[in-house]
């Protein structure tokens, strides 16, 4: 199986094949290694590569893999090559295009800090949302322009609700 994985600012081609029971041949951007990988929990693995041992724990939601290795989180966006070719997608370019800004949890809009047409910078506050007894500033993921504002102060928000669109 071949995947396109985005980690940090870069894309990688990752190929993986189970050559015998729980032994995998893995290639990352062409450099190959053998990996002894045992599943030790629902999303927990014990990996041994060249006698180096790793415990990894993986939190998956759709195509996002949060991989915990050695106390560090790796956020990986993974698409299988076939699906990418079919869909004509390019992994990892999202952050340069149209951004739908949302909040992961239900809450209440306290204030909207920008209007449609405003130029915003990456990290600039867009909306203040109250959730879990705290006020949270939702910031712009990119440098761009506010294309659409979907909420106003006082609105109640469902989890995942779109607040605005920045492009």
């Amino acid at each position, binding site marked *: *199986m071949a*995947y396109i*994985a985005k*980690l*940090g*600012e870069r894309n*990688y081609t*990752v*190929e*993986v094949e*189970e050559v015998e029971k729980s032994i*995998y041949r*893995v290639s*990352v951007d062409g*450099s190959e*290694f053998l*990996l002894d*990988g045992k*599943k030790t*929990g*629902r*999303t*927990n*693995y014990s*990996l041994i*590569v060249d006698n180096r041992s*790793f415990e*990894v*724990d*993986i*939190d*998956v939601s759709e195509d996002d*893999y*949060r*991989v*915990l*290795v*050695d*106390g*560090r*989180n*790796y956020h*990986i966006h*993974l698409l*299988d090559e076939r699906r990418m070719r079919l869909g004509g997608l390019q992994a990892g370019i999202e952050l340069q295009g149209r951004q739908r800004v949302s*909040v*992961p*949890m*239900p*809450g209440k809009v306290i204030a909207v800090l920008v209007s449609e047409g405003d130029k915003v910078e990456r990290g600039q506050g867009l909306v203040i949302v109250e*959730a*879990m*007894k*705290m006020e*949270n*500033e*939702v*910031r712009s993921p990119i440098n761009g322009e506010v294309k659409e504002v979907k909420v106003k102060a006082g609105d109640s928000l469902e989890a995942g609700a779109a607040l605005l669109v920045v492009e």
Partner: protein
Amino acid sequence: MFKRILIANRGEIAVRIIRACRELDIETVAIYSEADRDALHVKYADHAYLVGPAPSTESYLAIDRILDVVKKSGADAVHPGYGFLAENSDFARACRDNKIVFIGPSPEVIDQMGDKVKARAIMKEAGIPVVPGSEVLDSEEEVEKAADQIGYPFMLKAAAGGGGKGLRMVRSAREITPAYRAVRSEAASSFGDARLYLEKYLVHPRHIEVQILADQHGKVIHLYDRECSIQRRHQKIIEECLAPALDYKARRNIGRIAIQGARAVGYVGAGTLEFLLDREMNFYFLEMNTRLQVEHAVTERVVGIDMVKAQIEVAAGAYLPWKQRHISPTGHAIECRIYAEDPERDFMPCPGRIEGLRLPEGLGVRNDCGVYEGAEVPIHYDPMIAKLIIWGENRVEAILRMRRALREYQVRGIKTNIPFHQWILRHPRFMVGDFNTGFIDEEYGASGTEDVFPHKEIALASAAIAALHRERERAARILERGATETSRWRESARKTVLRTVGGERKRQ
């Protein structure tokens, strides 16, 4: 001693109190909101009462409902934990009126310490240094006059304030007018008390506090100091005991001063005097918390006293069994508060279902955890889900052990600040103890998200293997279904054919 204690709280602190009660052979009564039916504190308690809907104003803050449960359940005492009603004098008073023991100080003491201006005055009178500031100010002109005396920048604060609300920094005279209006209106709306005062602004002080224990018979001891300077959004996230900032002399001094302060208000129970420490090692009284603190566990580990049990015993009228000179701290303890939040998205809370949970274990590790694998972190309450308390023979060992433990910690399903704690614990300034309350603002923004990937290949391979397994499980499910379908399909097809054949025969 009490027969049955109601715990007017939830989460890790409710579990922690239940544990203490169980070890004292006291029955526990949990209350829970509709969002908390499955919570750990409900599972661990001996009795459990639904107290209202999810919003805390209708459940954990609903004094009348809680009192009803106290009576129904036959509890003879109430432990308020921290937060919610822990510093609510109305609740303490209502308990007293109903002849129920409120495990905490008297409502009068809660009131005195809740009013920041009054608390400052009492401490000042008791000879305790307070941050230079004013009395209650009634107009912009009075603020200007006080500002001339104290100097800029200063903090304009609500007298009834707390929890990071109702305050503004004022850098120059022309900022007085807007700040005055803002604080006044926030104070009125948040605390129902528009009074305000000003306080000198200390540039990046360290936050030091002293733990006090006092019995009903006039004995007051301190259980040494803690440092809680690692904060974000005015909220402590890492606490230590003893405070690395203090030397032997300062430690003795601040302990003595804290006892003086507790005596001045006639304090009973466990309480904390908070101080700010400036660069010249001057300390100033900030406020007194008339309750158990989140961070009490670091003190427990270093002095070897179960503070919740001490609270309960003091409330039951017992004499404190310890003499000050018997309280000797051993080693060093650090606490990391584990929040359901996303440090990479500006610490946005992250409620949800905990799909996986593995706590760190071993020598020197204590987990105070309010959740379990499969539990929901509700959106209605504070996002702190657990505390990790580490002890070491000295501060260096404690830091190294904390790093080891954080590495073992696994939470799946929701995001947490564990990686953020790792970042702090690896920071050279934290390691040498060179920090103050501005540490996170100064350092975290600057270095930003670390894009360091030491085990890039392993992580990428893992994701790919997990994807492969997902794909396979999907295929297996389809196949399995297919197999039973096929056999059934064959059977049905065979029957149809037979029927058809039969039909044809008939027709022949």
